[in-house]
């Protein structure tokens, strides 16, 4: 799955990226504004994609002076599915939170970090998951099994590999926040369990 372009799970064309933008807001956009939010493709390419979506009725178009304004048609029978696909990133994060919430041994902190958290991930990107293992989680507590199960689940849910990065609680002394990976987690990490805030306070220099 391409975390930045979720509709690529069903279409590799520019129309998918345009639909992600259009479904994300109840607003009218010019072709240029859509092009800027899509962040790739040519301006003409985006406009052609918009016109093809207008033909399908899923995008509405009205003239405004010399420009055209486009709006997502939420009454279209296909609209709920497009909206669902446009929001898969948030759905994935909620699914991760829900999975971790059900763990018998709770992490001190858990976060998605790396390229996915920074919004730079592509279709081949791994999902980096940062976990702080509590001091009480010995080998026989089931901690390792629940981490492995989460990694396997991520692959089933997305097609991407999950890359768990685990720290033990006792590795996180004051000053550890200088470590580059931890700095990335603390700056850009998306909390999916435990408390990043508590972690931040613990490793503060």
């Amino acid at each position: 799955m391409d975390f930045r372009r979720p509709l690529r799970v069903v279409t590799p064309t520019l129309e998918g990226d345009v639909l992600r933008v259009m479904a994300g807001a109840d607003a009218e956009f010019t072709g240029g504004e859509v092009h800027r939010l899509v962040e790739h493709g040519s301006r003409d390419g985006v406009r052609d994609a918009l016109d093809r979506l207008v033909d399908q009725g899923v995008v509405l178009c009205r003239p405004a002076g010399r420009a055209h304004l486009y709006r997502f048609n939420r009454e279209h029978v296909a609209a709920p599915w497009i909206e669902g696909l446009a929001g898969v990133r948030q759905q994935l994060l909620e699914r991760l939170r829900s999975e971790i919430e059900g763990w018998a041994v709770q992490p001190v902190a858990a976060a998605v970090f790396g390229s996915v958290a920074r919004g730079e991930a592509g279709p081949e990107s791994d999902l980096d998951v940062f976990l702080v293992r509590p001091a009480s989680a010995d080998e026989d507590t089931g901690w390792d099994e629940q981490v492995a199960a989460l990694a396997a689940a991520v692959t089933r849910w997305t097609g991407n590999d999950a890359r768990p990065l685990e720290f033990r609680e006792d590795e996180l002394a004051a000053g550890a926040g200088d470590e580059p990976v931890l700095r990335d987690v603390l700056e850009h990490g998306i909390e999916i369990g435990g408390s990043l805030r508590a972690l931040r306070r613990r490793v503060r220099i």
Partner: protein
Amino acid sequence: MTRRCEETIAAGRMKKANQFLEAAETVGDLADDEAEVRDAVVTLLVHAGIAAADVICCKALGQYSIGGGGHDEAVRLLARVKQPDGTELSKRLGQLLGVKTKAGYTYRSVTAAERKTARRAAENLVKAARDL
């Protein structure tokens, strides 16, 4: 008034949303008496929520409110966002803006209930911005 938003603006506003929320929590934790710092905490929560709303609008609409159109403008703009749920989040932003003047500019102090509402509102907005 709204302004066109570039990626650097969204990233900078996200950093500030995190910073204000973190500072609000730290100030609250360090105080012996929570009521003594309540206005400062709520003011930081308001700023966290406003910055988070800017991030959400930047990413979904390509523009954000820069003031001049009253508080309603930022709330109305956020309500146009559908991913995440702008209707719900705009209510949270409205709650924060509703307590902004009392916390920051008047002689009266916000209540414990207002602080609780502000905290929940700011946390919801910052979480939605981070998840985008």
